[in-house]
C-alpha cells in the first residue's frame, strides 16, 4: 500500500517536472467566416484567431492563406492574406480579419491557413502549424441571394397595381347591377308594406 502511494506520488512529480521543463509554446489558429451566406460580388469576411497557449512569447509569426483564396477567384478588399507579426506574447490572443469579394459562384474549397513561427527568440528553428479549415463553401449568385432575401416591396406594390383592376373592375360592375336590382325589390316591398 505504502509503495503504491509512493509510486503515484513519484509519477505525479515527474509529470509536473517534465511540464515545467518544457518552456516551449504552442500556437492555436482558428479560421472562420463571419458571413452566414457567401454571395458572389458581395463582401466575405474571414476571421483568423491566433492564441499562444504556452508560457513563452513566440516570434516571427507568418500566416499564409493564399491557397484558400486564389487571386483569380477572390478580390481582396481589406487586409492581407499573408500577415506577419513580430511576436505574440504568452497566453495572448490575436485576431486578424480579411475582407474578400468572391468573383465566381459555385462550390469553393476553403482549406487551412499555414502559420510559421519561432518558439523563442534564440531558437531559430521554424515551427509550422495549420489553422482549422472551413471546407467546401457554396458561393451563391447575387441573383439567387436577391431572390431569397430581398423584400421586393416595390415589385409587390406594382403587381398589386396591375392585378387589382382585373379583380376590382368586374366586381364593381357585378356589385352595381346586383345592388340596383336588390334595392328595386326592397323598395317595392317597403312601399307595399307602407300601403
Amino acid at each position, binding site marked *: 500500500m505504502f509503495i503504491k502511494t509512493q509510486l503515484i506520488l513519484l509519477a505525479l512529480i515527474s509529470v509536473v517536472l517534465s511540464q515545467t521543463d518544457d518552456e516551449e509554446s504552442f500556437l492555436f489558429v482558428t479560421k472562420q467566416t463571419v458571413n452566414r451566406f457567401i454571395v458572389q460580388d458581395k463582401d466575405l469576411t474571414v476571421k483568423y484567431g491566433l492564441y499562444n497557449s504556452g508560457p513563452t512569447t513566440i516570434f516571427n509569426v507568418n500566416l499564409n492563406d493564399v491557397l484558400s483564396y486564389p487571386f483569380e477567384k477572390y478580390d481582396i478588399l481589406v487586409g492581407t492574406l499573408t500577415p506577419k507579426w513580430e511576436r505574440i506574447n504568452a497566453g495572448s490572443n490575436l485576431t486578424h480579419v480579411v475582407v474578400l469579394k468572391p468573383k465566381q459562384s459555385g462550390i469553393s474549397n476553403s482549406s487551412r491557413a499555414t502559420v510559421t513561427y519561432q518558439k523563442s527568440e534564440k531558437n531559430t528553428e521554424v515551427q509550422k502549424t495549420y489553422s482549422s479549415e472551413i471546407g467546401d463553401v457554396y458561393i451563391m449568385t447575387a*441573383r*439567387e441571394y*436577391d*431572390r431569397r432575401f430581398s423584400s*421586393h416591396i416595390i*415589385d*409587390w406594390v*406594382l*403587381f398589386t397595381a*396591375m*392585378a387589382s383592376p*382585373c*379583380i376590382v373592375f*368586374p*366586381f364593381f*360592375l*357585378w356589385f352595381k*347591377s*346586383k345592388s340596383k*336590382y*336588390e334595392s*328595386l*325589390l326592397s323598395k*317595392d316591398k317597403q312601399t307595399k308594406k307602407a300601403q
Partner: protein
Amino acid sequence: MIEQNIEIPVDLPMKFIFDILTPQPHFINKQAQMTTQRSASQDEDLLLQDFSRNVTTKSWILFSGNAAVVSAIPLWLFWRIHQMDFSSYFIHFIIGTIVSTYFLNLAYQNMKFILKHKIAQKREEAVNREISKIFANDKNANKKDKDDRVLTRKNEVADFEATTFSIFYNNSFYLVCLIVLSFFVLKNFSPTVNYLFSVGLSTLVVFLFSTGQK
C-alpha cells in the same frame, strides 16, 4: 310542319340542332303549344341560347382578353422576384401563359353558364317590376310585348352579372392560388419548377372548381 317553323341559329352546337330536328313526342307537344301562343322562332332562339354553353363572339373576346391579361400579370412576379429572365425562360412563359389563358377562358365560360340560371331566377321579380314601371304609362302596350321585354331584359341582366362575377371570381381565385403556390408551397424549388407547377396547378384548380359547381 313544326320543324319548318324553327329557325336554327348558326352558332348552335350539333346536339341542340339534332334535338330540335328529331321528332321527340314531348318536345313536339311543347312546340305545338307554343306556336299557338307566340311566334316560335323567337322563343326557340331564347330557349336554345339559354341552354347553350356556347358564348357569343363578344363574350368570347372579353373572356379571352381577360384570361390573357390575368395569365400575363404573374410573369412580373416571376421576372422581378423569382429572377427569371425573359430571354432564358421565354419558352416556359409562352407555354404557361397560353395554357392558363385557355383554361381560364373555359373556367369563365363554365362558371357563367352555371351562374346565369341562378341569377336569372333571382332577378326575375326585380326585372318584372322594372319593366312594369316602364309599361305603366304606356296603355297601348299589350301583355305579349311586356313579357318579351321582361324575358330579354332578364336574360341581359343575368348574362351581365354572370359574366362580371365569373371574371371577378376566377381572377381572384387564380391569383390567390398562384401566389400561395409560388411563394409558400413551392418557395424553395428551382424557378422553372416553381413557375410551371404553380401556373399549372392553379389553372387546374380554378378550372376544376368551375366545372364542379352545381
